[in-house]
């Protein structure tokens, strides 16, 4: 059974790009594009990996990550954070919030693939 990836991102073109890359590698990719109800989707889908954008409409990616980590059921699901704001401060905030990996846009496709693979493998 294919590993499931939940992509939480609001930019349609980026959703399309990541979905394309991971799908071709055999991942089951589902996407969600706003912050408001992201947690419900996460709980419902129980993904193996979550790719989470920081700047989401309605709710910050950091807050969503904090909720995930605080939820005992969701446990230690690996989370890859994406951000378009390339500042050091954001990286630190992501690490504090418990991100498994952190990646700055724009990224290389191969890198995303590698990271997602490694997250599930670990």
């Amino acid at each position, binding site marked *: 059974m294919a590993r499931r990836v939940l992509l939480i991102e609001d930019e349609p073109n980026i959703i*399309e790009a990541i979905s394309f890359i991971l799908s071709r590698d055999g991942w089951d990719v589902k996407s969600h594009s706003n912050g408001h109800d992201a947690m419900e989707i996460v709980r419902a889908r129980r993904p193996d990996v979550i790719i989470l954008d920081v700047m989401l409409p309605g709710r910050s990616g950091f807050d969503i990550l904090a909720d995930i980590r605080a939820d005992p059921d969701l446990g230690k699901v690996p989370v890859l954070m994406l951000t*378009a704001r390339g*500042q050091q401060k954001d990286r630190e905030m992501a690490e504090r919030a418990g991100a498994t990996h952190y990646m700055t846009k724009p990224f290389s*496709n191969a890198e995303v693939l590698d990271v997602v693979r490694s997250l599930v493998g670990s």
Partner: protein
Amino acid sequence: MTTPNLLVLVCILYVTFLFAVAFAADRAALKGRGTWLRSPLIYTLSLSIYCTAWTFYGAVGYAARSGLEFVTIYLGPTLVMIGWWWTLRKMVRIGRSQRITSIADMISSRYGKSNTLAVFVTLIAVVGTTPYIALQLQSVTLSFAAFSKVDPTLTSVVRLRSTGLYVAIGLAVFTILFGTRNVDANERHHGVVMAIALEAVVKLFALLAVGVFVVWGLGDGISNTLDVIDASKIAEWDVPGGRWAGLTMLSAAAFICLPRIFQVMVVENEDEGHLRTATWAFPVYLMLMSLFVIPIAAVGLKLMPSDANPDLFVLTLPLLAGEDSLAILSFLGGFSSATSMVIVAAIALSTMVSNHIVMPIWLRMRGGTAMVAGDVRDVALLARRLSIAGVVMLGYLYFRLSGAGTALAAIGLVSFVGLSQFLPALMGGLFWRGATRMGALAGLSVGFLLWLYCLFLPSFGPGVLLPVSVIEHGLLGQSWLRPQALFGAQGMDKVVHAVMWSMLLNCAAFLLVSLLTFPKPVERLQGAQFVNVFDHSSRPGSWTGGLAQSEDLLIMTQRIMGATEAQALFSGMARKQGLTGYLPEPSTEFLGVLERELSGSVGAATAHAMISQIVGRATVSVEDLLAVADEAAQIMEYSSRLEAKSAEQARTARQLREANDKLTKLSVQKDSFLSQVSHELRTPMTSIRAFSEILRDAGGLNPEEQQKYSSIIYDESRRLTRLLDDLLDLSVLESGQVTLNMQLGLLSDMLDRAVAATGGTVDGFRIERDLPSEQIVLNTDVDRLSQVFINLIANAHKYCDADQPVLRIEVRSAGDKLEIDFADNGTGIQMADQTVIFEKFARIGVSRAAGAGLGLAICREIMARLGGEISYVPGQSGAAFRVTLPQEMCMAAH
């Protein structure tokens, strides 16, 4: 022939006249009239109470016995007036600023308001002055006798003594009437001073008249009189230098220390400037008084029988010549000299006695407090009146007991020596801050005892008061203690001997004890006040206020000064403090003023004691005071400095905080701007990179996918370019470096262009316009204004969520403004967002449609550059933006 009865009548008339003058002067002063009463001339004349009957009659006798030696008596005061006027001025200044009532008050006040010292000085003054008063009574009595000799039937000892009694009673009554009208001894006795000035004129005139009569009437002109003088023994210059200098010094000292001189010179002084006049006028008066002394003495010695009393030449010479009226004038001169001295001396002594002895005792008997029923004012007046009667009667008693003998003749100098004992304490107090109360007491005691032992007691003659054995062999047989040859100093003149030892040891004791003892705080404070009186004539208060009850003080003051005066004083002070009513704050200043006022009535020491009781501090420690004052000054200075500093610091801090806030805000804005820019740039770049990698790396893409991904790359590139364009545009606009290209353009043309640029009315998007109203020519940057319109139309295009979106463009003129409204029929913008929509990167809602959120920010900048503005108009059917332009940009329509 002049009978004693006639003489009595003349006396009564004269005294009545004096009464009238005194009464009139008092009335005039009371009504504020009679400024001439306060002239320097009156002041100078009043000083002439120095010339008593002793000088009026005695100077001639003195000259007849000792030649020119009598001059020393006039020389001393002259030297003091001329050479020491600065010292006198200091005394007067202190007397006025401290409201000094007597010499005892001054010395006591200087040495910490010590009542012990005041009592001591008072006793010495009484002992020293009583014989002098007796001397005056004697001279009047003798002058009566001189007339009686001509009419021997009336001569009797009883008669003589009763004359003295009548004179004493009459003087006491006069003094009580005019000397105790006011309880405040510091208030001037205008009536008394006026009467004394008048008497000064009478005695000078009398003496001059007698002199003129003697020289031209009896002596046949100046040259003959000079011959007579040459022939007499007066011409023999046999005054020992020591005695001459000693007597001059003595009379100088006495002039300063005599209670009656102090009374007229310091207490009665109206104006410090009067002293300046007196400096030359008083010596002139003395010179006139002594002008005819020698001729009268010489002619008297020549004409009168050898057993005649030379002391009475002034009177007996006219009588001898049968010039009765001149004799009566002369008698009046002597009478004036005697009475004026007694009156002033009685006032001065009674003030001291009542203030320093009677009142303190009375207060102590009443429980040591002024807060008792009964009027202190009445008691003070009664005490003063009784004291006057007592002092005069004491003089009379002395006159009776001493047997009216010749011993009185020498008593003038004896008295001088006794009173001169005040000099070291007085002068030391004026000029030396190190002088202490103990030093003053020691000096006074030593001087007084030596005076008693060496001069006063022996003056009654051997065996009268001092046993002969003591005089000849010394106290307890110790020859070095012989009263007139102390420490073996034999062969000296008795008076000079006494002056030398008493003054020498007085000074030594004063200096030594002052050096060895430590002044009490109040002494130090007063010492500074006295010594530096010219530096600070207004005395800093010696009271710490706040403890006193103003009401208690008022009650006490009313009892002393009388209700009206006290209330006037209190309400005056209250007003000065900015309060209404009768009760001022018991401030240090007020208590100081009150104490001075009260000390005018009851003396410094008593006033101090009375206020102490109410204020609740028996003694004021100057260390405390100075410490407090210093501390207060320091604190005030420090706190005012601190205040200034802290105000400045607060100002600086506020500025810094503001600057910091601004910087922080700027920094936050910059961070968030950079962060936003970064985000806006990275997002399209992510898509571009991802899809270009896919196109490059992923094989087997179908043509649709290739087409789609290429389009995404193309769109995102354009988005990126637009973003960069906007950013640059905004940066140029914000930095103010934009160059406006002003030109004429028709508003409708600009709107046409904008509609066309946004794709026009495609997709069912409708734009409603009113073309006639748009026919306005504007002088503006046409491209920039069009850019704003494009932005607004594009926004409506993008965000209007109505099913059939409509944008209505309305142009209207509002005052000096031209308004162009862009209103759509969508849901509009929520209130909370309305304020942020013009900020950079402000994007509302979830829609991510194309824009980076810079459009409205750019519009705002453009409108600001064009002199207009863009605003959101709330409360419309949908989103409504209003572009406002100043009318001057409009030209008339074609």
